[in-house]
């Protein structure tokens, strides 16, 4: 089908004097895994809840699967699965009872056993939810979303607070859903998650999309693929203006005494940097290089980090 899975125009949502979503446009194709990446408070959750028909926007238009919430709510609810942030499922129900209950709300869907297998919770199916680990609870939340075999899966920060292994398990489940042709809209403040899962990413800040593209495109937009970070014992010995003239250096930023060079050709930039430091007699206290990430994209666009750590 040709129409988009999700289409939003000019979404606005205010809470008192705070503008949570500020004229946001969004287009997600069918079969696409689309991520909204941004720091806490950027308006990601408000946006995804408006798209799910849980919040009323103050202005703007939303269409999901070509339909509007006003006229087709019951049908849309049948065709989407959702995992919300901070939902605590009933503690004294078992895993199987919970999935069975959610299954009963839908006309169509898959067998409870199948979805338990999909999220690897068969062994825990008779445990009370209160006994599950954080990762297991989150997989259960996704199971409740998948049990209707949705056309669109909404995930609001699905791996926040999980350990790396649980996070990877969840990514596998979402990837498998995408491989079968499902559409995913997820929010995250983990750039690894966006890079790993998403075909396209919208970087969101202050309720607006400030960059949009595939993770590769966004990183390429920096004009450089690598980042060199270093710190000097005496920070005043080299000026930023001099660093910017080194071969291959695109951008210089100093933060808490650490210098970040965004560079195009790391094999030219690093020897030149070393030579400069030797001339000035400056001594390195720390140095590392890495490929540029979405974090660097966010940093170069806003001057801030995705997470306040």
């Amino acid at each position, binding site marked *: 089908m040709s129409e988009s899975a999700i289409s939003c125009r000019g979404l606005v949502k205010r809470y008192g004097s705070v503008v949570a979503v500020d004229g946001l446009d969004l287009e997600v194709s069918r079969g696409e895994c689309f991520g909204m990446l941004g720091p806490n408070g950027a308006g990601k959750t408000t946006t995804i809840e408006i798209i799910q028909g849980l919040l009323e926007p103050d202005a703007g238009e939303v269409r999901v699967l070509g339909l509007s919430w006003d006229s087709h709510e019951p049908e849309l609810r049948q065709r989407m699965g959702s995992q919300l942030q901070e939902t605590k499922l009933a503690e004294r*129900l078992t895993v199987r009872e919970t999935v069975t*209950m959610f*299954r009963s*709300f839908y006309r169509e869907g898959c067998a409870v056993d199948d979805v338990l297998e999909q999220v690897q919770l068969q062994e825990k199916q008779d445990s*009370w939810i209160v006994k599950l680990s954080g990762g297991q609870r989150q997989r259960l939340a996704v199971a409740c979303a998948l049990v209707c075999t949705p056309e669109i899966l909404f995930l609001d920060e699905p791996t926040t607070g999980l350990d790396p292994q649980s996070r990877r398990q969840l990514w596998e489940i979402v990837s498998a859903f995408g491989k079968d042709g499902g559409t995913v809209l997820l929010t995250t403040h983990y750039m690894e998650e966006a890079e790993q899962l998403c075909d396209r990413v919208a970087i969101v800040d202050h309720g607006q999309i400030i960059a949009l593209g595939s993770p590769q495109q966004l990183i390429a937009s920096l004009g450089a693929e690598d980042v060199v970070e270093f710190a000097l014992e005496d920070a005043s010995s080299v000026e930023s203006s001099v660093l910017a003239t080194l071969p291959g250096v695109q951008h210089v930023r100093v933060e808490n005494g650490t210098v970040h060079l965004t560079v195009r050709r790391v094999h030219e930039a690093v020897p030149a940097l070393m030579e400069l430091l030797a001339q000035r007699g400056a001594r390195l206290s720390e140095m590392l290089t890495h490929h540029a990430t979405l974090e660097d994209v966010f940093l170069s666009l806003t001057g801030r980090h995705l997470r306040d750590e």
Partner: protein
Amino acid sequence: MSSPVGGPLLQLTLWRIRDFIREPEALFWVFAFPIILAFALGLAFSSRGPAIVRIAVEDGPGGRQLHESLDSMPNIMSVLLAGDEAQRRLSTGRVALVAVAGEPALLRYDSTRSEANLARLVVENAIQEASGRRDVREIREQRVTDPGSRYIDFLIPGLIGMNIMGTGLWGVGYGIVRQRNHKLLKRLLASPMRKSQYMLSHVLARMVFLVGEVGAVLLFGHLAFGVPVRGSLLSIAAIVFTGALTFSGIGLLVASRARTIEGVSGLMNLVMVPMWIFSGIFFAYSNFPEVLHPFIVAIPLTALNDALRAVMLEGTSIFAVGGLLAIVAGWGLASFGVALRMFRWE
């Protein structure tokens, strides 16, 4: 593909039931507590002979003689005390009355306390008799201890009513607020679950437990104290059913907007405390001033208790208490109606 898991209403109701039976504390308060209360109050107020009044006689001229003559009466227990000590015991309620010998004799007591009024009558009578008063008419006594007219018989229907109110409000209200607080209501809203079925599941689950919680108290009252059930069980079931529906509706209303457990607890108390006081659970509301009666009988728990007592103790038919049931049901319908409009899902 047809759903192999039973309808959503069944699943939602099963959820409510499982939530409840997997919480041992809740089971205690709903099933065991009313029985313990009935047992304690039943023991305290049953099998008691004529009341003995405790009084003090002030030490002074003629005091000892008055004390001895009063203390020799079978229904008076007297102590001889110095004036200030006697006054202290009176003001702390350890004696109901202080008598001072003299001409005329003085009886000091607090007329707002029922045991003090009783003491006044008993002591006056004893003093008059000891001084040689002759009764002009003979009085014959007959003590009533028949089942159906004792305090325990009054109490058991009251406890059943109180339990229906408490479990309706707590069972429905607490669960809803907790789910709202846990963002679970919002998650359900994101699914195609029908809101009306969600609300109905709370009421249905209440009906399931009603049989047990009312049955337990009735059976206990009958076995332990011989409390009679003179009307038909079917009539009692109909009254209890109406009451439970109504208090589920009030529970829904109380929980329709509260965001926190603290908030809903306050609202519950606001609703329940007046009914505990006015609705004749532990004592008859005829103790309150006449002008209040029209308001008191319009309270749902009063109507429920009156209907239960009429059917249980007097064997009244269900049709004769139709007016009372209409009051109960009216509250229920109004609460449901308002709750549906006000209900907040997030």
